[in-house]
């Protein structure tokens, strides 16, 4: 138990943004538009990226522009890449989620919810509020079309904690009435486009904070209102364990996107 508390303390300075400089301001990185467009030849990648329409190069170009902080409408006022990186991997701090390969429709809905207050956030809400609907769609498709990769993991976590997190993820807890994460987030936590985000390989501290926000009722923006009732049954140890576990899950699927057979 003592070790678990230490792990929590380690993550605090990271949340405060100490790692902010790691690669976040590099505008030259990230995939070029042609690479992303080529990826859309794969139906499952295109499905993962789409919001309203199957994305095309114009939409991806606009998305890239928004990500870089510009747009016709004056833009968001802040470049996405500042915190989320040109490759969508975040800035390494764990305060900002990675976006690469996250379902486009999910990302779009989060922007809408940041703007309308369903998912209030002091940083993201003003940014989203300045984007047009089309710019939200574009930047969501842009990140949704990106290849995913692995990111460095933070800190040491006791094996028993990872084991408990793995159990919560895979089978839940009958005793606590917590359904397994994989019910909705996919067998390996790799998400289910268009509406369910991946958790595998996401930053642990980000996921832990989100669970707390669900539990506190601050975040309440899932369509069927399931996350708050799940989070309310979790204590801090549960949240940390499942977040640490899922942040360490890397599968081939997580790196290539879900294997979805989709025909238009």
């Amino acid at each position, binding site marked *: 138990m003592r070790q678990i508390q230490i792990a929590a303390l380690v993550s605090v300075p990271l949340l405060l943004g100490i790692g902010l400089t790691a690669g976040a301001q590099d505008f030259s990185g990230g995939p070029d538009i042609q690479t992303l467009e080529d990826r859309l030849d794969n139906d499952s990648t295109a499905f993962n990226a789409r919001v309203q329409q199957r994305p095309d190069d114009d939409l991806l170009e606009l998305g890239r522009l928004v990500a870089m902080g510009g747009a016709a409408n004056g833009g968001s006022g802040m470049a996405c890449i500042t915190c989320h990186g040109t490759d969508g991997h975040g800035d390494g701090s764990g305060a900002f989620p990675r976006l690469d390969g996250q379902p486009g429709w999910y990302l779009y809905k989060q922007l809408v919810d940041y703007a309308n207050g369903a998912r209030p956030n002091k940083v993201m809400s003003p940014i989203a509020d300045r984007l047009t609907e089309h710019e939200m769609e574009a930047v969501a498709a842009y990140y949704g079309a990106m290849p995913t990769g692995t990111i460095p993991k933070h800190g040491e976590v006791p094996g028993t904690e990872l084991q408990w997190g793995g159990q919560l993820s895979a089978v839940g807890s009958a005793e606590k*009435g917590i359904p397994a994460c994989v019910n909705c987030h996919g067998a390996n936590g790799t998400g289910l486009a268009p509406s369910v985000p991946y958790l595998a390989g996401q930053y642990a501290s980000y996921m832990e904070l989100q669970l707390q926000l669900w539990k506190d009722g601050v975040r309440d923006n899932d369509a069927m209102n399931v996350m708050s009732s799940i989070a309310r049954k979790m204590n801090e140890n549960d949240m940390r364990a499942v977040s640490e576990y899922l942040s360490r899950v890397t599968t081939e699927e997580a790196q290539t996107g879900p294997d979805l057979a989709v025909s238009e």
Partner: protein
Amino acid sequence: MVTQLPKTDVVIVGAGWSGLAAAYELANAGQRCVVLERGKWRHTVTSFGAPEEHDELKYARRKEHMIDTPIKTLSFRNNSSETALPMRRLGSFLPGKGLGGAGIHWNGQLWRPLPSDLNMASHYSDRYGEEILNGLSVQDWGVSYDELEPHLDFFEKVCGTSGFAGNLNGDTVEGGNIFEGPRSDNYPTQPMNSSPPQQMFRNTARQMGYHPFQMPSANVTEAYENPYGAQLHSCTYCGFCERFGCGYMAKADPIICIYDVLKNHENFELRTEAHVLRVEKSADGKTATGVTYIDADGREVFQPADTICLNAYALWNVHLMLVSGLATPYDPLTGTGTVGRNYSYQTIAAASVFFDKEVWSNPFMGAGAMGVTIDDFNGDNFDHTDLGFVGGGYISATQTNGRPINYNPTPPGTPAWGREWKRAVRDNYLHHIGLTVHGSSVSVPQNYLDLDPTYVDDYGQPLLRMTFDFPENDRRMSSYVLSKAEEIGRNMDHVVDVGTVNRAAEGARYSVVPYQTTHNVGGAVMGTDPTTSVVNRYGQMWDHHNVFVFGACLFPQNLGYNPTGPLMGLAYWTLEHMKSDYLGNPRPLMDA
């Protein structure tokens, strides 16, 4: 060598909805309860999680959650001139197995009976004259809607049922089911969402003068705590209710709703893998002394008890009575005896509505009880004069699933296989809705259950034998209500084609092969006359006062609704009378 165990207060056969409800109520009333379950222990959270649970081949086709026929089955024939043969594969109906019973793989369509359903014989006789019931063995249940109402209400709260009331304390509420009996309270959670075709069904039905409403559903729509303190989550419309357990904790089931809040009670003991062979009778035959079962290690065990509750599946309850010699078996030749009498089923038909590409159903988003329904042709909600039948059914635009193997709707005239079939499935998968006609089933003297003279099971006990075909009454009823469903379908916008299927069509014999519904009822019916019922109006056996019977085997005939709501209302009614009137002073609660 039979192992005799220490006596317990109550032994309960079966750990499904009614068995666990009985255990909860009686354990909390100070009774030491032993629950015997044939199947294995399992848990909603750890056993039914997606995506593993969403394995259609394993659970829906190979039926992993259903009874294994080598362990328990029956023999079947259409009429008494035939020789019955064992049902070696599941088909028409799917009894459950394991902790939670069929309450795990149900759809969650949770109804109340109409007031007139419960006094069907006297109601029809009063309104149309006695001759309308000629040839039928329809009878009153012996319990009224008003008596059951608090118990129906309680079970809806146990399940966190979603819905929209149509009759609150006698006041009609537009948008609900205006035909339902007076409700003392609204549904505990909000009604479900509906898909575009369901909304079109609602609009068309309303334009035609009918009264559409959202089907009451145990697929819960918001986070909910039931009266026992159990927690349910909201439904994600994943489309895997029917034949599956719900690892989301969104479909009410006996494990999360009851077992979890009961399992640590000092008066509760669950024994799984306990195959009950028979109920033992006392020397004078007036009471039962306990039950004999084969335990998980294959030993024969006698569990003595003061009170015996039979909470197995409807058919298996009847089988247990027959092999135990409880009460008198029904004899169709003389019309005497009661056990096995008044077996009835459910009369299922459907209209299949195909839209053009403007209307999207997205059937992969569904839920077991996601339905928009009309009750205008159910029960006696419409004038039966000169129709030639009694009873009726609800018509419901349901969207339960879009499973890849099962759900492949094709318009009439499509070949059953090959390129044209595949093209039709592709074209129609997203643009279709089924209109279910869920019809009642009358009891008639020639349909019944008894013991098979030839076939025995692994334990050397004769199989239950089912003799059943659709009564002419129900064929006429089904054809009539189906024509109304078809008419609504044709009146909807953007409709390209409407197909129909009717298992009870004129000339078609009932078959145990194609799936229809698991709603087998009757065979140990309740009533106020011991010559036509096995149990009295409290669910207590006339012949053995310490044996209480639960479940759909009590229904004297089947109503047009899914049975879980009515049978659980009856269960809580019986339990209330056991607690308040029987246990302190065991005796027959009614004079025979």
